[in-house]
């Protein structure tokens, strides 16, 4: 593998010893495979390589609209975009994630210029989150063992975004409806990433699942 890739995932140290084959995605070193085939009942994936940025401030919503970014109307909700998503973390704070790094780079560049809309300023927020994906029929069981939120009871049509504590770590969680199941996206401060990954993976494995590569 190339350990001289410019970026390493915040979860890299958590799985480094178990991975033999590596790839570089969006300039970040990621596993090409975790070595287990088949379709386990629950999988945990590292999707930290997705490009993302954040913005904050009274003018953030208007500024995003001016950039052609769809803005969720409700706080604590999210909306899908063509290649990613936009999450509204508060009245004036947003997380934008996109598989296309260039889209995020453009937004970040503009933000760093100190943008101001009619409703006020808009500040950039560096987002180097650890980003995880929990999927499979047993995914909700992992959440039930780690988090005091009834995800099964959420109305997914409203795009709810949950800010809560998971195994003692502050996380953002959204549930994404997929053709055959519901997958959960989880973001946390990168310095808690390895702890969160190791703890979740222990439970995932108890349930017959394992780490898996998710194609971005």
């Amino acid at each position, binding site marked *: 593998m190339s350990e*001289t890739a*410019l*970026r390493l995932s915040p979860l890299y140290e958590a799985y480094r010893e178990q991975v033999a084959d590596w790839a570089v995605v969006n300039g970040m070193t990621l596993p090409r495979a975790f070595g287990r085939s088949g379709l386990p009942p629950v999988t945990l994936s590292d999707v*930290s390589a997705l490009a993302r940025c954040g913005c904050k401030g009274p003018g953030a919503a208007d500024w995003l609209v001016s950039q052609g970014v769809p803005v969720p109307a409700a706080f604590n909700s999210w909306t899908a975009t063509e290649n990613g998503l936009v999450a509204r973390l508060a009245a004036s704070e947003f997380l934008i994630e996109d598989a296309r790094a260039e889209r995020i780079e453009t937004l970040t560049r503009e933000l760093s210029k100190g943008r101001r809309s009619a409703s006020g300023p808009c*500040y950039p927020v*560096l987002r180097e989150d650890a980003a995880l994906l929990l999927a499979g029929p047993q995914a909700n069981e992992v959440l039930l063992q780690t988090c005091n939120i009834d995800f099964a009871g959420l109305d997914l049509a409203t795009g709810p975004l949950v800010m809560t504590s998971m195994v003692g770590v502050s996380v953002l969680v959204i549930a994404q409806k997929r053709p055959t199941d519901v997958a959960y996206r989880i973001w946390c401060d*990168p310095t808690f990433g390895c*702890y969160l990954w190791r703890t979740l993976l222990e*439970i995932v494995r108890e349930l017959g699942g394992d780490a898996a590569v998710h194609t971005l």
Partner: protein
Amino acid sequence: MKRLPPQAGEWIDRGKPLRFTFEGIGYEGYAGDTISSALLAAGVRVLGRSFKYHRPRSVLSLANHDVNALMQVSSCFSVPNVRADVTPLAEGLRATAVNTIGGVARDRARFLEWLAPFLPVGFYYKAFHKKSQFPFWERVFRRTTGLGTVDFSARRKGSPKRYAFCDVLVIGGGPAGLAAADAALRAGARVALVDENPRLGGSGLYNLGGADGERQAEETRRLAAIAAAGAVVYVSSYAAGYYADHWVPIVTPGHVVKMRARAVVVATGAYEQPAVFRNNDLPGVILASAAQRMLARYSIAPCKRAVVLAANDDGYRAARDLAAHGVEIAAVVDLRGANSRGAVPPGTLVLEGHGIHEALADSQGALRGVRVAPLARDGTLDGYQAREFECDGLLMSTGWAGAAPLLYQAGARMEFSAELQQFVPAACPPGVYAAGRVNGVHGFAQKLRDGAAAGRAAAAQSRKPGSVDGAAPSCRQERAQSGMPSHPYPIFAHPKGRNFVDFDEDLQLKDFFNAAQEGFDNIELMKRYSTVGMGPSQGKHSNMNAIRVLAKILGRTPGEVGSTTARPMFHPVPMSHLGGRGFMPERATPLEGRHAAASAVWMPAGQWQRPEYYAVENQTREAAIRAEVAAVRGAVGVIDVGTLGKIELFGRDAGAFFERIYTAKFAGMKVGSTRYGLMLDESGVVIDDGVIARLGEEHFYFTTTTTGSATVYRELTRLNAMWRMEVGIVNVTGHFAAINLAGPRSREVLAPLTALDLSEATFPYLGAREAQVAGLPARLLRVGFVGELGYEIHVPASGAAHLWDQLMKTGAAHGIRPFGVEAQRLLRLEKGHIIVSQDTDGVTNALELGMDWALKMDKPFFVGQRSLEAMGRLPRKQALVGFTLDEPDTGMPKECHLVIESDEPAGRITSIAHSPAVGRVIGLALVAPALSKVGSTLNIRIDGGRMVRATVSETPFYDPKNLRQKQPETA
């Protein structure tokens, strides 16, 4: 006792025999048996010994409360205090009774009963009254009483913690609970149902009353099937407590489920209560419901010939159940008067207005007969008219106590019903409903109606909170149809005693009278003095009788006496369940792997693990740290400072905001510069410090202490909300990595990695720049915490490892070396730089630090300024000073060692180390102002009480003019 022929609904699987041992003797039972049922079926009558007198004991309830049949059970490791009455039998299981000396049959401690006259109530406390006797009695009590033995070789069991959610939680899978679940399911609610038994149905499947109970069992099975199909069902599980907002811990065999419900139906039933008479503890004296469970679940005849002591309809139902299975009924003894008898099998002798004067023991200590006497008008028994009946079983059915701890914990208002002779809920809090026996409703049909009403109300409440009154659903009619299920005083004195009120602790009736006589005549005081209800069953079979006894003593009603507090967990929970899987959040910088590869020795710093130093083969810790220090002073070192808090401030008012929160001035601060900041609370106490960099007119980036980032961010957010300034605050602590490159060669190491002009003239000391470093967008701060030319380089966290690698690569030719926290501590100590929370504490104010240069008291305002002004007018209480040790060979002080003056503490060491640069032991200390003058002598008391001397010195100890931090590029 014998195993009955196979019958429908029995819990045992006769096709799966299981072999096990008890007290070393081999037995056989069936899958589905409990340890107790298998032993009873094998004819074993004595299952344990009592706690205090070591009397032979056996089954009482067969309902999870047989505390005199606790066992030490061994498989791969030994488990103490296993409840044999509910623990499933397993192949190869090895069980022994707890609390015996020499085994249950020949327990050598049984002689203790002879000493009973010398062991009055409160003996335990009286024995400990004199301190000098404490060790003696402690040894005696530990040897002669107690329960099982903890096996310390047992493996730690990491049982998972699990949350669960439902609309309606129904606690109790008996008739009322099943009816509640059915009604809630019909209303469309998500229902969870909990029952402590392995199968649903409760008394609906064993309290049958003979053949006419088949319709009742059929209805119970129908409801159980509906619940199993529609609800999430937890069997062999119990709700161990109730917490606010309908939080209920459910203890399952493997783990605890934290259930959050929108509404809760408590249908926990009732504990059948024993009568109190002489020898009411003999093996063979059991509760009637226990006998019915034996019959229906395990197909065991509890005896060959029985006497039934009844004071309600349930006693007669039990008699009919016994007769239906071929057990001979010697007599039904009814405590009530004439015309209260229920239906009995033809030819059964019924003695109304009689009671049990005493139970008689055989040579093994088990029941062989009873003496039955008529009741006098005052409720006592006339022993002279007693008749003897031979029997090997005595069934007691004289009353019930609602299983109401969860209702108490939920805040239900309980009242004593004289009609029912039971505490029942008068009002429940919103979303909590009671049903069935715990609600004072005892008839089968009535329980179904009561349960259904509770289930409907709970479902409605779960859909729309507040839609249903939180008071208990109307159940007066159902209660009225229950008759009087409990006798008001089924308690009988006997001149020879041994009439037990509490089987856990061997408390006799006389003990309560003696306790009251000694002044403990309040139910809470009596509980603690007599220890009633403080044993393993927590009073489930003794509290109600204790209340009745105290009421009798005081001439009050049980309602006036009241009940004791029922705290969670109200039933024992395995420690492994309570511990569960451990969640201990740990933070790691993105350089964790690089440190590990460099043989870092870790030390905790809040939630972080940081390299204390980097181990080198064949080198001591001290030598390794000295080498790291030497590298920084002589060449170049690199340290991961990513744990520092990192916060950004944006907005037109950002500068003005800093003016208010830090003690320094920021209004005139130039873009591209840094400044040291000291943060105080409103009382002037130092709470944090850091470096503030101005990156733009409206953009600041600053660091906080490692442990202070979250606190500082929260406080700034609070102040911003209060002051309403145009400021945006972003906590980027984890999102930026930070590396401090320090040492005279640091510029040469950094230069190849960046196009930035690093010359002293262009990028001077205390400057701040943004530039590309090793291909990464970076923020560089020229700071000098360790007192050398240095660059603190901040990059996005994902690039940290790359930057580290590049620095190590270009630094190799310059002798670069990573250094850890210990080396950094020494380097900054040589410079006299403080560490907030090490050199300060929770009361150290800024005036005491000798850092007046950092306090701009002429500013209009900063947090803590007013307090400093006030304190400035008063004499100071302490001062932070530097010192050098006079004679290092006399002993090395440690941090927190005291400075002594005139035999009184006059300060303490906050930092200390041997400085290679100074060639002496140097340190910082908070001392009394009188000792703070340079040249003063400090007398320090070290380990062992010895005194060493130090002299107050100027700081910094090293490079006082800060020349090394400003080295020109030619240096």
